[in-house]
């Protein structure tokens, strides 16, 4: 690999300086090369050889628009799934905010999903998705709610995930990874018709009951419906009980001090 003859920090030739190659050597691709896997990609496999363009240039092999096809030269099946997913369709339509491969996996820092350094490691998935799905400025353009991330983190799955459980469901356990589709799509893993099968991956014997009720709920918000009203009822019941008990203590103390003063 001769790219690093020029593209390194401190080079004298005047070529763009970059540390990217160091990240590359640590990545799953760089490690595979080091282990002698001749199928693993080198710089030119992604960036091209004589046709190298900057990533910002739409015609570049690694541009947001083209990178999926570039990765797909090796990852064919994944590319096929991705192309028909909501993200793939959006990228094809030219939506700049939609993620292509590098949007989730990183560029030179791609690691296998089982590697804790990976952006798509089980406990990192929620944070990775929330970079866009938690952003009102991005999601409002497409009419998508941003509550999903917060409500997930409040759910039992989310809490267990935040405290390091790798077996509990994260975003992609239910929504899929490369094949993510909107819930209205009959092929979506979170379409109410498919929910029993999706939940059944972890909860054996899951049935259509799993799809009854909103999935992402925040008991503190009115959108949660009856859950919100029951939670509010209990909140005021607890406060009311507390006040009644304190009132009882004061009354009882008052009565007792009267008895004491009377010398009984």
């Amino acid at each position, binding site marked *: 690999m001769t790219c690093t003859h020029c593209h390194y920090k401190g080079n004298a030739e005047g070529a763009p300086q970059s540390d990217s190659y160091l990240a590359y050597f640590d990545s799953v691709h760089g490690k595979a090369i080091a282990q002698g896997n001749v199928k693993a990609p080198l710089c030119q496999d992604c960036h091209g050889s004589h046709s190298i363009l900057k990533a910002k240039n739409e015609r570049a092999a690694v541009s947001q628009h083209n990178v999926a096809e570039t990765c797909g030269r090796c990852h064919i099946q994944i590319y096929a799934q991705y192309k028909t997913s909501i993200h793939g369709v959006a990228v094809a339509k030219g939506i700049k905010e939609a993620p292509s491969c590098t949007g989730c996996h990183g560029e030179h820092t791609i690691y296998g999903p089982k590697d804790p350094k990976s952006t798509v490691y089980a406990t990192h998935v929620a944070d990775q998705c929330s970079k866009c799905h938690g952003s009102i400025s991005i999601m409002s353009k497409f009419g998508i709610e941003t509550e999903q991330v917060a409500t997930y983190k409040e759910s039992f799955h989310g809490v267990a995930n935040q*405290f390091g*459980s790798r077996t509990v469901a994260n975003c992609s356990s239910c929504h899929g990874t490369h094949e993510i589709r909107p819930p209205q799509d009959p092929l979506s893993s979170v379409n109410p018709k498919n929910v029993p099968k999706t939940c059944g991956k972890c*909860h054996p014997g899951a049935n259509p009951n*799993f799809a009854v009720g909103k999935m992402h709920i925040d008991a503190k918000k009115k959108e949660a419906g009856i859950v919100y009203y029951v939670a509010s009822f209990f909140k005021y019941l607890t406060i009311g009980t507390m006040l009644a008990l304190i009132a009882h203590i004061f009354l009882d103390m008052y009565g007792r001090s009267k008895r004491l003063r009377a010398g009984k």
Partner: protein
Amino acid sequence: MSAKSPDPVCIVRMSLMFRIQHILLMVTLLVLAVTGFALMYHENWLGRTLIQLEGGVLFRGFVHRAAAIFLLAQMVFHAYYMLFSGEGKRELREVMLRRQDFDDFLQAIRYNLGTVTDYPRFGKYGYKEKFQYWGATGGIFLISISGVFLWAETFSMRFLPKLFLDLTLIVHGYQGLLAFVILLFWHMYNEHLHPSVFPMNKSWLTGKVEAEWIRQEHPLEYEKLKQEGVL
């Protein structure tokens, strides 16, 4: 207040059997509260610290469920003891709710507000003790039901929609909070802060209370013990 005699007459109020049950219940409820509230309040530092102290979120769940099984076992044993043992049957008669308890409660309030002249006279257990006992019993029973639904979540959802479990999770947490609040403001006052027992009614350890305390706080019981010749 009577002058303290150097060697006050004491009588047994809590037998060894009940003291053991009380201590086990106390420890179990504390474990359940600490592991439960850690999850309920996971978003603040106290919850986070507790979860870490409890060996992570999964071990926390394990401890919570182990304590829950122990609590259920205690509940079954207690029901058996109260219904079938000689001592239990006697105590059950004493602690049984009567119309009189409600009247006593109203009279106590009226007395405290100054509209009647006499404070109610209690037997072995007054309305405060009975409310504590039946409140705890009923509370533990109800929170156990919601807890079992949540534990067996896949099984529950064979019959019940997800929405029901969402509600159960909310109800279970608030039931715990409510029980905690009642323990704090009722039990803490009656058994610790109340001037007649401050800083603590020691009968949960020694089993004994002074006869003079019985005479003042539970006069009907005092008279009964006199009649029976115990005092």
